[in-house]
């Protein structure tokens, strides 16, 4: 099914309700369900419902249909010196706004700008009851009604199919620079650098700690772990930021292109898990992640010390045994472990459910009472 208008989309869903036909919601299909066990054979293709609906640069807001790619948005906004400060993994010319919000995807820029939750001002979606629902609005501040925008952000299309969203834009920094700082691999050294970064009088646009394997993939090879720091602001501000970074370690410039490369550098089909704890425990979280990556050929790590998150990327090819991957991933860890992508068979074992209680189940039942939208995506059917 590939509805071309809102009315057709609603009809498709109403028809599916009448026939009790479960739907797999597909936009550009670049990341589908990350192999999550969705129990639906019929694809509801919504990626063609695209286009910028309203963009008034002076308001720093943009409204677009869900199938609009991040690339299209970047093209329109950069012409006015603005951007949607969101850089999720994946090729921006395929990644859609709707899928990015639905999956709550973000990238290194979250360090400064937050995640889709923080920049989505309003949404329109068709719920599993076949209703066209709007939450929020097109202005930057809005508390009218209960917050349906936050509810569908990160809900992976399990409550409704997003058709339109309004997002907050920012001005592009007039000057940008990216610096790489080598640090030793000792935990004490990492902790010293982390503390020093945190003590800076400014918050960089992005801070990523990368291990040797990730450096290699990004084209900035080096034997040791390194911080890659993205700076932005007016000329004087960036000059001072550079100065201040030098206090942390030897810093040298790398091409700002590195951030674009990072979005597509990952081995296709890799198994990915995010480990997180409070930022103060970042060094320990990094060590735990190292214990996973060390045991896996080609394992890569990168993490954001400000958010306390480390992403572990394990390349997977056809010959890998699920059992050995599982053994590598299942180290003892007392923080939060969020799987991003796994071989299909491992989802039920490693991430049985993201439905944590009666309220989660109640929300699903209220918005998708017949369990027709991406059923099983949160493990709710196991």
């Amino acid at each position, binding site marked *: 099914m590939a509805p071309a208008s809102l009315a057709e989309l609603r009809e498709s869903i109403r028809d599916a309700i009448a026939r009790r036909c479960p739907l797999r919601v597909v936009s550009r299909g670049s990341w589908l369900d990350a192999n999550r066990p969705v129990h639906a054979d019929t694809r509801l293709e919504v990626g063609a419902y695209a286009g910028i609906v309203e963009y008034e*640069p*002076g*308001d*720093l*807001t943009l409204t677009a249909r869900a199938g609009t790619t991040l690339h299209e948005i970047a093209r329109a906004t950069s012409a006015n*010196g603005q951007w949607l400060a969101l850089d999720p993994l994946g090729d921006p010319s395929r990644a859609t706004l709707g899928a990015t919000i639905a999956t*709550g995807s973000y990238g290194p820029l979250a360090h400064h700008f*937050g995640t889709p939750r923080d920049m989505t001002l309003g949404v329109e979606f068709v719920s599993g009851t076949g*209703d*066209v*629902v*709007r*939450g929020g*609005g*097109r*202005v*930057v*501040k*809005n*508390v*009218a*009604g*209960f*917050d349906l*925008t*936050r*509810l569908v*952000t990160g*809900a992976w299309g399990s409550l409704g199919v997003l058709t339109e969203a309004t997002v907050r834009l920012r*001005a592009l920094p007039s000057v940008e620079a990216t610096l790489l700082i080598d640090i030793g691999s000792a935990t004490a050294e990492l902790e010293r650098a982390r503390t020093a970064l945190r003590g800076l*009088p*400014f918050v960089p646009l992005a801070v990523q700690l990368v291990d040797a394997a990730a450096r290699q993939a990004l084209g900035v090879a080096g034997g040791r772990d390194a911080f890659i720091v993205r700076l932005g602001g*007016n*000329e*004087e*501000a*960036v000059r*001072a930021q550079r100065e201040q970074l030098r206090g942390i370690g030897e810093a040298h410039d790398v091409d700002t292109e590195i951030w674009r490369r990072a979005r597509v550098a990952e081995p296709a089909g890799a198994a990915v898990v995010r480990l*997180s*704890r*409070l*930022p*103060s425990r970042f060094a320990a979280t990094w060590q735990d992640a190292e214990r996973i990556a060390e045991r896996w050929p080609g394992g890569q790590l990168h993490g954001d010390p400000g*958010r*306390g*998150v480390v992403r572990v990327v394990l390349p997977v090819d056809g010959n890998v045994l699920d059992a050995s991957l599982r053994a590598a991933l299942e180290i003892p860890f007392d*923080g*939060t472990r*969020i799987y991003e992508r796994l071989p299909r068979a491992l989802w039920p074992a490693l991430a049985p459910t993201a439905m944590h*209680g*009666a*309220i989660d*189940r*109640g*929300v*699903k*039942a*209220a918005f998708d009472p017949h*369990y027709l939208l991406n059923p099983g995506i*949160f493990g709710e059917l196991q």
Partner: protein
Amino acid sequence: MSGVTPSVATESERHPVDAALAARLAAIVGDRRVLFRPGELLAYSSDGLPGYLKQPSIAVFPGTRDEVIAVVRELARAGAPFVPRGAGTGLSGGALADGVVLLGLNRLSRILSIDAENAIAVVEPGVVNVALSRAVSAHGLHYAPDPSSQAACTIGGNVAENAGGPHCLKYGVTLNHVVALTVALPNGEVVTLGNAAGENDGYDLVGAFVGSEGCFGVALDVTVRLARNPQAVRTLLADFHSIDAGARAVSAIIASGLLPAALEMMDAGTIRAVEASIYAAGYPTDAAAVLLVELDGPIAGLDADVATVVRHCRDAGARDVRVARDEAERTKLWQGRKKAFGAMGRISSHLVVQDAVVPRTKLPQMLARVHDIAERYRVTVCNVFHAGDGNLHPNIGYDANDPDESARVHAAMREIMQACVDAGGTITGEHGVGIDKLPYMGAIFSEESLSAMCALREVFDPDRRANPGKVVPMHSCREWQMAPAARTGQH
């Protein structure tokens, strides 16, 4: 709409007080903490919204988290509707309890923990907003959302309203600062939403709860993110000979991409009220409008941004732009802004504090519209608002006992709200819907959207006992009755 002529229902009209319930509540919290005599309840019969007096049947004030839970469970057993209340500074009537139980949370005012290293704090719901910032200031931190009522309002009330404030332009509103919550659901069950120590998967229930106006349950503790104090702050006052010039300056600053920490506007009426009060801030009394602009962050590069702001103000026709020389002058400039409502309130017997939002490029035309509407209805509007967010507060002082004036005030407000909606805006940016904005919900949301909101509320409160009759008009909730099987959540 606010400003209905005050009336206290007579004793016989009201629900008979459930003496047995009051006694059971007293057994939990002690006799002194349960009020049910009309005289005692008067103080809890209104909130910040003028013109309403709604008497609760019982007001109960638990002192500990366990007492709150026990009270909520007792109310659940009794099937009794209730209204949570913080400091009662809300401006949309959200904390009004009309013949039902009022659950006061102001005694739960402890800061439970401060983690300076990770810049988070866990607080009880009755902690006063400014008390939190004071408590963490020694660590070089503050709590960023700063409603003008911050000296009185509570974090619980802020969470329920998703409160904003002048500095939310740069730092974000309450939603962006709450990472986890413990909530007593209306059925007495206690749930934890969110996770302070790591990321979340699954539904964003913290996001859903923030701004739920007391309809989803009672916040028992709130984990908030704290902001680091900026290295430097510059506060500017620009004055204009016309409102239009001021509004154009705002639009130009925003369009330039600069992100001031705050960008507030006050018009002549507001300036005069402030300057005639004890909060006189030194605003020029002959100005048609002033902008209070704050820039903060690292010292390096800050003055370049200040220069950009000054240039935009001058280009728009500012008569004068001055930068506060020291902390004392800064504080004074802010004090005038933060106490502006109070200053206006001294001048008239009643004050309607309105709250709406328009796109930032529409500010000049919208302020002109507001002016025209006010003239046509012969009412005096004073504007004092979060201009950088397009968040208008057109306020009208009047005498609620004059029926003709009241009618004109209400008609003018209706037209202003409609104009904001027509401009692509919304009916409330920070004060919430409560009962005041109920009639406007249909102007911005379809029946389908409203019933989806009802459905969400029912997940948290299937019996609709928490803050009944608020936020979503009852007639929109017909689907509640239609599909009970779909909502049990057992699948």
